[in-house]
């Protein structure tokens, strides 16, 4: 039983943020939606909480799950009146991944995207450090990996295949 739901909008907003910030990406469970930069804001109006998120990729199936999880997390925190708003602009970019998020990705075995990446890098030669041994002797196996956001690479030094979070 949850008791003591704050009545002031500021406190309610903080409570809602703390609850939403626990939600993780279902496909990369080491990253929270704050690490990803998907959670954009919380608005409180007349006791109702509106959570604003922004989609990562146009067709990312994780977005539906994330929206459901946010609603569930807020309800668990005792907040019943919840709505989720999806905003497209400004468009999400991998540059919004936090430093903490990049470190967690590396520890999870996924090479993080380069900050400031994007088109310029896309058509040039990318160098990606192996998240396991740190070697730069790595090769692209396939531009499209296990999820829309990842490419498949292999390390020439430790011979391990690994995922690379693509720049977007």
């Amino acid at each position, binding site marked *: 039983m949850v008791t003591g739901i704050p009545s002031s909008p500021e406190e309610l907003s903080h409570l809602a943020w703390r609850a939403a910030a626990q939600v993780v990406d279902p496909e990369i469970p080491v990253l929270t939606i704050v690490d990803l930069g998907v959670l954009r804001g919380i608005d409180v109006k007349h006791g109702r909480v509106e959570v604003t998120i922004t989609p990562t*990729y*146009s*067709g990312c199936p994780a977005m539906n799950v994330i929206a459901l999880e946010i609603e569930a997390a807020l309800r668990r925190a005792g907040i019943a009146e919840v709505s989720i708003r999806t905003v*497209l*602009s400004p468009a999400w970019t991998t540059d919004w991944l936090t430093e903490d998020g990049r470190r967690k990705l590396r520890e999870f075995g996924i090479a993080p995207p380069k900050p400031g990446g994007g088109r310029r890098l*896309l058509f040039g030669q990318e160098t990606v450090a192996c998240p396991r041994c740190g070697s730069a002797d790595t090769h692209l196996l396939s*531009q*499209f990996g296990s999820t*829309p956001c990842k490419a*498949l690479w292999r390390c020439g030094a430790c011979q391990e295949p690994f995922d690379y979070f693509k720049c977007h």
Partner: protein
Amino acid sequence: MSLTTTSIKIAQTPIVLYVLRRADDALILGHRLSEWCGHAPMLEEDMALSNIGLDLIGQARLLYTYVAELEGAGRDEDSYAYLRDAPQYRNLLLVEQPNGDFAMTIVRQFFYSAFADPYWRAMTASKDATLAAIAAKAEKESAYHLRHASEWVIRLGDGTEESQARAQAAVDELWAFTGELFEADEAERELIKEAVAVDPASLRGAWSKMMGAVIREATLKAPSSSWMQTGGRGGRHSEHLGHLLSELQYLQRTYPGARW
């Protein structure tokens, strides 16, 4: 949502029709690519084609959702995908062409992506904030699609005798569908004037340059024929679209209003 198999009637305003065309291109090509799932020549390509298909269907969802907002008739993205018949679809004839062999799929993807990539990039400057935001996502995705398709066109063309013959056959077969990429009608030209829409004709140079460079590197030949097939934007489709829709719409037409 009412239980009906009756096809919906769409508001004939320029902006609605304009956004629908872009959505239809993305949905139909995305559906075609999804047909490769589990059948591609190798696992990496199975994942690549499915991933690209997913990106395109995602773009279609955002665009259909915007159409629903513009129409304000209480519809959602699914209404447009499932409750319109072939003549109501306004996609390019290119994207509805059957997958054929792997070379045919790759060349179709290359012709479309070499257009979509500069198109979405130009669209990021649209005065319509929603279209600009959708374009900001789509242009990054289409850049990956273009790179993937270009690399394969080169590999197939400059590959074995067999792969070159198949790639050349695909180029020859699909060439007549590329003229439609650059078409715009009266209504669309109004939106172009208002800087809401992108003028497709302005991208012909960029497309030809990209196409020419890749075709050359692939040791293939661009056909000299200038006769172009047209009709998709007006709802006059090849026989292939009806077959595609019968599969795409099967569930909603059989069990109207069914939900997950």
